[in-house]
């Protein structure tokens, strides 16, 4: 494996939302949406971030771009600590880091033409002359596979898949190097999903992009990611190479999650041993002590309810990293 350079470094990231009660809106607690998350994103890779709803994966994505205020921790972009920048300094950084949203219906302004939607980042960052901007918009439409003749049409004239292409073109307008894609395909039909995923993959290779791909569709994450991180209740449970995480997972939660995903093969499906988790995900306002997964875990022992497991690197000697937050990871291997 070639030595990879780090584009982003996330250190002990925390996002807590206050819970307020009463007339004086006294704070009575906090929802720990993201509670101490650390990982690196390498240049040119796609890092898949998976987990169930409410595990904090979207909040992590927003916090990295500082679209959500941090409660703690640091984010380094190419070695620079962007978590301590002022709002004004941060705005200058934003042209390098963009976002693609989940819902292609609510993320495009219905009163703007797609030309002005895609060109808006260029105006905001004052890039190029009016003529150059117009040329750039045409180029972008072409890049995402839309007819440049559509430039003066409105979002409602497009289908979900086409709208998502518009959202992608807007994200690419300023030539960013890093893109957070928050569930970019989950609002689309199956036959359209493959089109958009293939487009994202092509663009990454052509433009040398780095993605943080947030999704709950595990098969798609395996397909598109180089590495995968699994989150549960605001913590990273496992992080590693996609094949390592999917084929040699060491965390009981990852295993349960993978076994819950149906496979489009009736014979395999009938013979699968499914791990059915008991109960629901606990509230992030009051997460369980010790390991957050222990109340639903089949392997939990006394230590799991008392001590929180650290995220440890259990990768092999060849330099590949496999981070697992479980006291019993070695026993499960």
């Amino acid at each position: 494996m070639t030595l990879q350079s780090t584009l982003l470094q996330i250190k002990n990231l925390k996002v807590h939302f206050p819970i307020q009660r009463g007339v004086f809106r006294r704070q009575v607690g906090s929802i720990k949406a993201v509670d101490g998350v650390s990982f690196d994103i390498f240049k040119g890779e796609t890092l898949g971030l998976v987990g169930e709803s409410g595990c904090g994966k979207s909040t992590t994505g927003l916090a990295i771009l500082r679209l959500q205020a941090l409660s703690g921790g640091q984010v380094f972009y190419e070695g620079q600590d962007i978590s301590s920048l002022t709002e004004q300094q941060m705005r200058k950084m934003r042209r390098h880091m963009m976002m693609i949203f989940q819902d292609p219906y609510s993320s495009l302004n219905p009163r703007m033409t797609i030309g002005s939607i895609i060109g808006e980042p260029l105006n905001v960052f004052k890039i190029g002359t009016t003529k150059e901007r117009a040329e750039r918009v045409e180029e972008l439409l072409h890049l995402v596979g839309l007819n440049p003749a559509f430039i003066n049409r409105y979002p409602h004239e497009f289908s979900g898949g086409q709208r998502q292409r518009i959202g992608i073109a807007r994200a690419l307008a300023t030539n960013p190097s890093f893109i957070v894609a928050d569930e970019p395909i989950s609002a689309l039909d199956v036959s359209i999903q493959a089109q958009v995923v293939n487009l994202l993959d092509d663009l990454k290779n052509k433009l040398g992009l780095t993605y943080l791909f947030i999704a709950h569709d595990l098969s798609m994450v395996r397909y598109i990611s180089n590495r995968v991180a699994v989150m549960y209740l605001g913590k990273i449970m496992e992080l590693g190479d996609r094949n390592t995480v999917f084929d040699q997972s060491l965390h009981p939660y990852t295993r349960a999650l993978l076994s819950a995903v149906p496979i489009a093969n009736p014979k395999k499906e009938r013979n699968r041993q499914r791990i059915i988790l008991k109960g629901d995900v606990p509230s992030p306002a009051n997460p369980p002590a010790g390991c957050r997964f222990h109340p639903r875990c089949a392997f939990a022992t006394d230590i799991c309810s008392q001590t929180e497991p650290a995220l440890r690197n259990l990768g092999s000697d060849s330099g590949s990293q496999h981070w697992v937050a479980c006291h019993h990871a070695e026993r499960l291997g």
Partner: protein
Amino acid sequence: MAHLLEVRDLRVRFRSDRTIIHAVNGITYNLDEGGSLAIVGESGSGKSVGMLAIMGLIPNPPGWVESGEAIFNGKDLLKMSEADLRKIRGKEIAMVFQDPMTSLNPVLPVGLQLTEAIQSHLGMTREQAVERAIEMLRLVGLPNPAQRIKDFPFQFSGGQRQRIMIAMALSCNPSLLIADEPTTALDVTIQAQIVELVRELQQKLGMAIIWISHNLGLVAGVVENVIVMYSGFIVEQAPVDDLYERPLHPYTLGLLHAVPKLDQQNQERLASIEGMPPDLRKPIVGCPFAPRCPYRQEKCEQEIPPLFETGENRRSACWRWQELTRINTFGEPL
């Protein structure tokens, strides 16, 4: 075995502005007693509308059933009066819907919502109905049913609400359960719980089930037969193993190749189906899938293919199904 449900040439239309939407375009299928069938398709394929039509739940206006029959236990549901239909709905045919958040009444305790159906359909007294409701909630694995019966829907999680919906649907011993995307709003680990529950209950209670879904993976392990719908037509029907092993319609083939595999390393590029589903406001000329099909010929664009019998219990609406038996990769030339 006798057919529990026979649907013949069902057509459903909706009026929208000045145009007519052809939502369901002549679908025909059977379901045996105790059998299980999945209807798979993307949004707008007519999979849910076809089911709602059978239950007499299409609001008119804007929608209506243009033609067709739905013979359930020897009686045509589409010719029944609303009063007769109401006796069957919820008793002999029960439904579980996609969204457990909106299909329960938020201002009534769940117990009351459960007993309402039990009292009206089974003629039980209040006390008996409460007992039955508790028994049903226990059956679907809700902890402390006797206490929780007084709680309101917001006090339950999404998965628990869907369990309550299933308890409600099964409380009158239906002979047919229609599950319309019952797990789409849920997380995968909760989805696995619900799928397991429905599968267990079907074995225990022996009812027939129609499972409506957009997820080919999900239905693979839960049904015997699969119908694939596209723009209001049945394009393929087959026993579950045959369908996944050797699809005989380019659309099914395309769908199977457009989804990445969970259990495979270093997969090839996804074979995407180019283009979009057809506009249902326009009359369909030729095969509805032809504009997106890599195997289309002149004939496909001119004539709607009939649903050919391609084997035992198998049908495909493709002019070239015989040639398709030779390939198994979408987009590969014939």
